[in-house]
């Protein structure tokens, strides 16, 4: 392609955008809105997933030791746990620490403790964190068998509910995002198809004057890319604004919610959306054009 022709394509692209005001606006705003919705849910799903992971990573195995285990035995067990596959962190909690925590947890019913006077019936224990939640079910019985271990617990029921919930959030999230992405592509492609349709006569005239398919296609492709990029850009701006606002709001009133920090998260999401917008714009134009090129 000659430089002169390239220049022609670029001029052509912008003159066409100028002349097809309504259609350009329609495509661009449709891209913007679709990607805005998509981005919104991408952010939502990723955050839910992040929360789920945070919750899951807090699940741990509590290993209660028999009172008879010696200090040397405790060190040995600690090493043994640490060597097990998938174990990330081992924390030793002795009787006294356990009692402290229990007091805190009891909260409003502290009166109860006075009845205990000075005895401390709580056992020494280990808290073991693992790399992935599925590991817990395998390790717990294994650990129970070790000498000196009274039993190993992980709140079976609650944890299983939690896992089902996080699994649902994940699968649901992926399904949702895929569906929204397809819907966005479809809606955007629809819009572009209509804009190309409105110009089918123009395309056929070009063909009759001897223009090759690519000569006709390039300005449409560029136009689709420019409009797609512009739409995505609007979506990205709005999203970044909204997410930043949400974050600062959350810091004030929802400190307990584990949201994904602003950077590099927003940059990544933006890159995905900008690339999608441009690609959908270009592809949408090219594919829609195909039908009308055939004259």
């Amino acid at each position: 392609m000659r430089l002169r022709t390239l220049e022609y394509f670029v001029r052509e692209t912008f003159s066409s955008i100028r002349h097809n005001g309504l259609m350009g606006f329609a495509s661009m705003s449709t891209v913007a809105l679709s990607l805005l919705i998509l981005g919104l849910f991408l952010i939502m799903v990723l955050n839910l997933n992040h929360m789920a992971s945070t919750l899951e990573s807090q699940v741990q195995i509590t290993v209660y030791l028999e009172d008879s285990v010696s200090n040397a035995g405790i060190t040995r067990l600690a090493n043994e746990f640490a060597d097990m596959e998938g174990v990330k962190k081992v924390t030793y909690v002795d009787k006294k620490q356990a009692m402290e925590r229990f007091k805190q947890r009891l909260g409003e019913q502290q009166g109860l403790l006075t009845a205990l006077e000075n005895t401390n019936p709580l056992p020494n224990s280990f808290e073991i964190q693992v790399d992935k939640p599925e590991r817990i079910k395998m390790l717990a019985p294994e650990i129970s068998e070790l000498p000196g271990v009274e039993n190993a617990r992980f709140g079976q029921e609650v944890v299983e509910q939690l896992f089902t919930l996080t699994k649902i959030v994940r699968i649901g999230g992926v399904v949702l995002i895929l569906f929204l992405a397809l819907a966005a592509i479809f809606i955007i492609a629809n819009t572009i198809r209509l804009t190309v349709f409105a110009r089918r006569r123009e395309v056929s005239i070009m063909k009759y004057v001897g223009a090759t398919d690519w000569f006709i296609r390039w300005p449409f492709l560029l136009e689709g890319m420019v409009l797609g990029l512009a739409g995505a850009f609007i979506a990205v701006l709005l999203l970044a604004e909204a997410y930043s606002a949400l974050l600062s709001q959350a810091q004030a009133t929802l400190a307990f919610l584990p949201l994904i920090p602003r950077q590099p998260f927003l940059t990544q999401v933006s890159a995905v959306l900008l690339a999608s917008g441009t690609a959908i714009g270009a592809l949408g134009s090219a594919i829609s054009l195909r039908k009308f090129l055939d004259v």
Partner: protein
Amino acid sequence: MIIMNNISKRYPNGSVALTNINVHISKGEFVFVVGPSGAGKSTFIKMLFREVLPSSGELFVNGRNVVDMERSEVPYLRRSLGIVFQDYRLLPQKTVHDNVAFAMEVIEAPYREIQKRVNHVLDLVGLRHKARVYPGELSGGEQQRIAIARAIVNNPVLLIADEPTGNLDPDTSWDIMKIFSRVNRNGTTIIMATHDKDIVDSMNKRVIAVENGTIVRDEVKGVYGYEA
């Protein structure tokens, strides 16, 4: 230049536009295609640049087999032709200048060449002063002349015109015919469908008369022959 062997055309809706057409046209000829409304003149002409494909028969234009042509070859066939359409087919969103220039842009002509030629042909059809306006802002005859300017801007080897003077007054029609004659003298073959009795009768060129889809007359120095 053009060879038609046993060409027939039946449109999908069943109407038969041409039956058994056999025509040879040599390089440099000037041919009028005449006949009543609906006779098949436009169909005859549209086949030459592959807007319409014949239902059967062989067709060669400028040495190319139009029927068996690759899809990707079609633009190159059309570039060697200049075409004036009965319905003009100007690009509504380009100015008059850009409409004419477009035919040169597609063959990737250099910028300076484009400017020179476009201004030249707009002068020829007397519409240089309308270069900056859009086709929608022109009168019917002006649009027709722009279509003519676009058809001749690339010095085509074959000029195909479907009623290029249908919307022109006799004076302007004659100006156009003078341009055609000059283009013809420079070696361009011309095929022109027309209803204009005066022009056909005075030009004294080959006349192919079509009626009801068949050639009823083919004279080397013919006349219009349909009396008013």
